[in-house]
């Protein structure tokens, strides 16, 4: 699972949130920060992200500084450029071994795509995994 940032221009909180998540990533806690932000999408603010950083026992000073880090911003903007080149304009957009799946599809569709790839790679479908 690889996270590619695509903050949409008409979502004013998207970029600051992406910065917060990437700042947490610097300290190895990307997915925890990701989960916290998604769990509280009505409470998206700089102060909120700093509060999460505290909860996640991050170096808060470093985290706060990173919220405005140009290098992190550049990484996010590079992700956005990648999206543009690939033709992805909406979120979420998924690539399963390079094959595009648009939007928040039901799990069954992911299972289908994953199983097709496993088959193509001559790999067994794990026991108990959902069938296509």
């Amino acid at each position, binding site marked *: 699972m690889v*996270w590619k940032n695509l903050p949409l221009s008409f979502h004013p909180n998207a970029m600051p949130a992406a910065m917060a998540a990437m700042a947490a990533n610097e300290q190895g806690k990307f997915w925890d920060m990701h989960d916290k932000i998604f769990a509280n999408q009505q409470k998206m603010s700089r102060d909120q992200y700093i509060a999460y950083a505290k909860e996640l026992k991050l170096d808060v000073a470093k985290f706060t500084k990173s919220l405005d880090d140009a290098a992190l911003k550049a990484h996010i903007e590079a992700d956005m450029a990648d999206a543009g080149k690939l033709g992805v304009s909406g979120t979420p957009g998924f690539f399963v071994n390079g094959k595009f799946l648009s939007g928040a599809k039901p799990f069954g569709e992911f299972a289908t795509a994953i199983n097709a790839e496993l088959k193509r790679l001559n790999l067994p479908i794990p026991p108990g995994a959902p069938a296509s």
Partner: protein
Amino acid sequence: MSKKNRERRDGDAGDDTKGGGGSGGSMNWLPILLAAGALVLGFVAWTDAKQVKDDTLKRLVEMDTKVLQLQAQVANAAKAKPAPQQGPDPNKVYTVRTDGSPTKGSPTAPIVIAEFSDFQ
């Protein structure tokens, strides 16, 4: 009876025979005129109606042709402009750059799912 009367009656009889049943000899062109007039009017009316019918038919044929032309144009337009591709081609295999991106799971996993997403 007086002679005069007899003469007049004779004269009348004579006139009757000459006149051929009309009210008076001087008016016998009227029925013919009326009949001719009616014929002319009837003819005019008939030609008018025919003209209207012909014009209408001609117009219908023109409209039919126009409809066929428009149908052809619409078909061409639909063919010429296929719906613009919405997003990446789902049948294509793309390469997604992953360096520097947060990951979850085994780095050597056979299945890599790249998610482009927004937090808001």
